[in-house]
């Protein structure tokens, strides 16, 4: 089989071939390692590669499957983890040279679950330093580059996850999403990114940014692969104080291709905000397609959307600075200057500001809950712009010039406040060939409906099948 075709196959396509012994995990892993070697000089997706370990694991997987000891649908599937997921015996830098030699002694829960499922770790992925930025800049390990145009950002903070997945370097990757860090690179790189409900996927063993808004989750090219990954990593974890005691369904069972009767609300405020008209049209077209497939679509009011930046800024900055205060005092001058600036500025958020933001969060959550009592999903753009140039401090969103960080987090932060599940899926390309994305948000723990609608959309379109030109 053509190695490049293997690299662009989904886990849903690879798994039956591996399970039926038509394709060896060794062949799968070798194809991906070759793809990484070919494209990494352009993309810089990885901080640490594990070629020998991955090939050894592939040989074990091959032997196990040959002997009838399959561990399930992810057995032999390549995965890579954002480099703030602790991995036993493998360095975990959080994107900073300060932790260049930090080797955890224990796997984070997500790594342990992937390992238990037989997935094969290819390496650790590049990221915005300490996950504190939405672009994918990193002077310590080199900036990440967008596979669709290497002059453009991947988005962040899980930028290496975005580029690796989009370019066929890996089948399933992970991100962590505090203000959009899964959905932003997913949107800008043209892949699928799910921020699960807060508490559904364990945060144990991940470097925190904001305790109350950190969400680990999968990044893939298809919604089916996202569902397969969620089957492996979701569930209660006593090691995470925020972990939810909820039943975890088979997420692939929700992928019926049918959206009949699903009620979709489209907040009009999303389209009043700064927005590239091409993206606005692309998202409206995507929603219209879902309507033509049987969804019930209507416009809704979400006025507190306009308060989401202030609420989340106060919470995120205060929590991030509290977590990193000792690091700041010890190694502040070794931080990427914009990250240092954000961490230091967070020290000036008062307790009163933080608590007022939490009061605002209560109001915000109530309004979001009320909306999701009327509809099943909220739909809108994931990003107001396509990927901007690396190091651009402003972007043009329609007629508005907006700070890059504010723009890239404009539509993602609201669902970090609520903790509700939100997915980004590709919904077209701009005139310059850059990906555009639709975001769908559902009720807490209603990932099945979110995945059902996203999968149905992918079944009716082929945006996710397009490949970047490298």
């Amino acid at each position, binding site marked *: 089989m053509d190695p490049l075709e293997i690299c662009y196959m989904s886990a849903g396509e690879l798994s039956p071939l591996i399970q039926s012994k038509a394709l060896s995990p060794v062949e799968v892993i070798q194809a991906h390692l070759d793809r990484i070697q070919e494209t990494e000089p352009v993309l810089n997706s990885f901080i640490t590669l594990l070629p020998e370990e991955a090939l050894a694991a592939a040989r074990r997987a091959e032997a196990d499957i040959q002997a009838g000891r399959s561990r399930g649908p992810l057995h032999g599937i390549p995965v890579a983890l954002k480099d703030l997921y602790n991995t036993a015996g493998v360095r975990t830098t959080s994107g900073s040279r300060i932790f260049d030699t930090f080797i955890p002694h224990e796997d984070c829960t997500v790594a342990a679950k992937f390992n238990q499922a037989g997935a094969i770790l290819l390496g650790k992925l590049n990221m915005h330093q300490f996950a504190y930025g939405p672009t994918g800049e990193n002077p310590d390990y080199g900036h990440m580059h967008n596979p669709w145009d290497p002059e453009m950002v991947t988005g962040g903070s899980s930028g290496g996850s975005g580029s690796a997945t989009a370019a066929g370097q890996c089948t399933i990757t992970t991100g962590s999403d505090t203000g959009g860090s899964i959905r932003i690179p997913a949107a800008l790189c043209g892949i699928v990114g799910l921020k699960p*409900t*807060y*508490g559904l996927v364990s945060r144990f063993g991940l470097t925190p940014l904001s*305790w*109350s808004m950190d969400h680990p989750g999968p990044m893939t090219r298809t919604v089916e692969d996202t569902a397969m990954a969620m089957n492996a990593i979701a569930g209660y974890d006593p090691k995470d104080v*925020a972990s*939810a005691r*909820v039943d975890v369904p088979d997420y692939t069972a929700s992928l019926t291709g049918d959206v009949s009767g699903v009620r979709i609300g489209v907040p009009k405020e999303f389209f009043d905000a700064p927005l590239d008209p091409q993206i606005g049209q692309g998202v409206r077209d995507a929603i219209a397609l879902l309507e033509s497939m049987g969804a019930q679509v209507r416009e809704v009011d979400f006025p507190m959307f306009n*308060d989401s*930046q*202030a*609420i989340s*800024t*106060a919470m995120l*900055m205060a929590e991030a600075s509290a977590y990193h*205060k000792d690091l*700041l*005092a010890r190694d*502040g001058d070794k931080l990427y200057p914009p990250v240092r*600036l954000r961490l*230091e*500025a967070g*020290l*000036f*958020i*008062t307790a009163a*500001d933080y*608590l*007022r*933001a*939490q*009061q*605002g*969060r*209560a*109001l915000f*959550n109530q309004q979001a*809950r009320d909306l999701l009592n009327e509809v099943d999903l909220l739909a809108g753009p994931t990003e107001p712009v396509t990927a901007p140039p690396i190091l651009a401090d402003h972007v043009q969103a329609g007629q508005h010039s907006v700070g890059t960080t504010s723009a890239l987090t404009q539509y993602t932060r609201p669902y970090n406040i*609520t*903790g*509700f599940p939100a997915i980004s899926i590709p919904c077209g390309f701009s005139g310059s060939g850059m990906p555009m994305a639709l975001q769908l948000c559902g*009720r*807490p*723990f209603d990932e099945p409906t979110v995945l059902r609608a996203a999968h149905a959309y992918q079944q009716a379109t082929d945006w996710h099948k397009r490949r970047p030109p490298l």
Partner: protein
Amino acid sequence: MAAESPMTYDAFLSLANESGLDVGSGAGNAHMEELYSYVKAVLASLRSLNELDVSQVEPDMAFMPFRE
């Protein structure tokens, strides 16, 4: 600090010092001036929090999303 009146540079330096930041001279001052501008911009962006009517609302401190 999301008050209407802007923080003076001296007040900022005092708070920075209290927070454990190095407010020393030389290169430190240039950094503090940049941080001062940034902090003012951040605090200004939070002023809209004061416009929310939160008189009947307790802070959502449980860090748990609503569960049905």
